[in-house]
């Protein structure tokens, strides 16, 4: 039962001041993509845009009832979109630009909470522009910046010409840890192919899972590893001042550089990081091998040097709790700095409760709809404020079609999609939010399976 989509697609554009929203908007309006786009921009737009179908909006956020923030919507949007829909012949696409500091929640919720909106419009995607250079100033302490990343279906890392490639990698890894569902693109001057941001189809969970193998990767207690080929002798691991007064590290032998050997050492490292830590001060020797979890305590000021000795020449893998760049850390041999043969970054295992993360779950089998409804409504009642977005492709017992749904906070919209046919029937679900408990979510989801 494929239903023809007659609703007008809406793209919501978010991003901090200076991230390039206006540049992108102007590009969208001038580029020849054959679409007639109506733009709703905030009244205090950064730069004026000259187009008949640009409408100014005042961010009027209000609560739907009971003062619950999960039900805040943008009243101005409801009104403007309502009027716009009467002139349906004049455009076939709508873009909503938000102010830099806007929480995307109320904007997104507007499309779910109002009946007229749901009948006539559908949220195609939330596109978030990220200033690749300046985002670091906000990403750790600004709720708005985190939410804009967390809500996004598409993230455009803009101004990449202003940052070093390794910083870009780090940024991308960080963003993926917060929102593994979003498609991430890189751009200069907001140059991006239009089909990457318009008519994305919103529902890209399938693709996200296929394209991004890291998506289902477990979380590790370390963020980085580097492989070194070391001869017999003494080495120095030198660290500058960093964000934390200490950092965990493990140095493990590696049989060879083949995949199987690396995986084996990786497992050893996970075990090692679960051992009791041994504090090391400046000048002390880093202990080698499985089970030796070193806690490198830094001097209050300046650099701190740790030593270690290698008796058995060969490959070694160094695992660090944080990225060495954060401490400007490097390994010295007898004469000079040694570069790792290869490095890898891991999806960090976040200890901070306030951190925004995504939890993806894949479960084979059929779900029982009543159980699922019961679980979801309880979950959203208890944690709706912390669950920013939720998407799923579900296999429901007794249904021939895939059931797809997506939600914003406590509101969600689900509908049958194409038939499963020969595809493996399974359930995929992703949550993006704060304080997410993976184990509890997995258990709850599993309980919904038809017995």
């Amino acid at each position, binding site marked *: 039962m494929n239903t023809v989509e007659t609703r007008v697609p809406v793209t919501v554009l978010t991003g901090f001041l200076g991230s390039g929203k206006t540049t992108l908007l102007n590009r969208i309006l001038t580029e020849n993509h054959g679409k007639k786009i109506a733009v709703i921009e905030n009244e205090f737009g950064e730069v004026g845009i000259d187009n008949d179908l640009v*409408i100014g909006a005042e961010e009027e956020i209000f609560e739907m009832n009971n003062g619950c923030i999960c039900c805040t919507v943008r009243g101005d949007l409801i*009104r403007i979109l309502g009027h716009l829909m009467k002139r349906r012949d004049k455009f076939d696409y709508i873009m909503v630009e938000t102010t830099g500091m806007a929480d995307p929640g109320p904007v997104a919720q507007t499309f779910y909470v109002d009946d007229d909106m749901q009948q006539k419009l559908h949220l195609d995607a939330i596109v978030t522009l990220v200033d690749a250079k300046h985002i670091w100033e906000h990403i750790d302490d600004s709720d708005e910046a985190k939410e804009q990343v967390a809500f996004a279906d598409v993230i455009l890392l803009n101004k990449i010409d202003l940052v070093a490639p390794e910083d870009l990698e780090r940024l991308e890894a960080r963003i993926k840890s917060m929102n593994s569902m979003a498609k991430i693109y890189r751009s200069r001057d907001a140059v991006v192919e239009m089909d990457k941001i318009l008519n994305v189809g919103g529902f890209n969970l399938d693709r996200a899972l296929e394209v991004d193998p890291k998506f289902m990767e477990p979380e590790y207690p370390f963020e980085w590893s580097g492989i070194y080929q070391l001869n017999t002798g003494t080495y120095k691991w030198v660290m500058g001042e960093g964000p934390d007064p200490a950092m965990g590290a493990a140095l493990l032998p590696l049989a060879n550089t083949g995949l199987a050997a690396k995986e084996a050492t990786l497992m050893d490292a996970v075990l090692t990081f679960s051992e009791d830590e041994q504090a090391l001060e400046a000048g002390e020797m880093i202990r080698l091998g499985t089970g030796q979890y070193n806690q490198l305590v830094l001097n209050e000021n300046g650099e701190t040097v740790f030593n270690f000795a290698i008796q058995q020449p060969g490959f070694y893998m160094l695992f660090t709790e944080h990225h060495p760049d954060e401490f400007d850390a490097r390994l010295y041999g007898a004469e000079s700095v040694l570069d790792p043969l290869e490095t890898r970054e891991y999806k960090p295992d976040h200890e901070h409760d306030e951190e925004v993360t995504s939890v993806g779950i894949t479960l084979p089998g059929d779900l029982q709809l009543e159980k699922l409804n019961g679980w979801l409504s309880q979950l959203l009642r208890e944690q709706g404020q912390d669950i920013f977005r939720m998407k799923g492709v579900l296999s429901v017992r007794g249904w021939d079609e895939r059931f797809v749904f997506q939600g914003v906070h406590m509101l969600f919209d689900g509908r049958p999609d194409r038939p499963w046919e020969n595809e493996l029937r399974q359930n995929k679900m992703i949550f993006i939010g704060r304080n997410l408990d993976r184990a509890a979510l997995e258990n709850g989801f599993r309980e919904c399976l038809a017995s």
Partner: protein
Amino acid sequence: MGLAWSPDGKILAVAGVSGPITLFNGVDGAVGHKLPGHALDTMAISWHKDSRLLASVGQDGKVRLWDAETGAQRSEMAGGASWVERVGFSPVGDWLVSAAGRKLRLWNSSGQLVREYPDASSTITDIKWRYDGKQFAISAYNGVVLYDPTEEEPLHRFEWQGSTLILEWSPDGKYIATGDQDSTVHFWITDSGNDLQMWGYETKVLELAWSFNSRYLATGGGTQIVIWDCSGKGPANTRPIMVEGHQHLIKHLKFQRQGMLLASGGNEGMLAIWKVKKKKPALLADAVFKAPIANLAWSPDDRCIAVSDESGTLSIAAVLR
């Protein structure tokens, strides 16, 4: 499509969403003047009591006054924001109020600004005059504010923490009914400022219609017409009359000006005429249009009803008795 009969019933003004306003002869339907209206969209129209002056507002940020006899524009005023959404001539006096975003302006019929009020707390969603023109009310997020046009300060504020979308005075001025985004209907008792809240609607409520004797308030907000009986002690703790018949959401409700017939228009394109009485209202007639009903307007003598649908069709139906 905005529809407004001149008070003398001789002209039906029709404002299309593309901007122009057409004046039809109210008796034979002949096309009269075509006014350019407002570029982009004409959002509301209102007649002066003399049936000669028509006010319009739209998305060009302007309030315009038109001479219906000559078709000429008499005045053009700035509404205060890019979209001027509401306009209303006093039913008795010479005043006109307009609302654009949070800007509320009072004009005289020559287009001179009488007063600019301090900005409302939120975008003004509706303006309605009391029957005698001595007061008018505006709605916005946070409820209703009542004004005396001769005074700058508001008379009362009827506060509700929600977005009020539409308001209707009962013809006797005792109640102000509102429809709200949070799927409620409120009855504000204007004397005491008390509020009766009616919960349980399917959707936001944008459809309100009072019967001429102030007894019944018909409300939409779903597929059923919900009619409250305000006689006796009022609608509090009473069970409303529920009228089924529409397949889709009801979009418009209009009572006759002097009779008990209620017209309802739905998203499925159905127009229905009901006779409202204490027990079950009776369906007298129905007709199906090819697109959702866009507007309804009874003629001043209650003999005809103008109906527009979203495909742009305008019909005038005579109601036989």
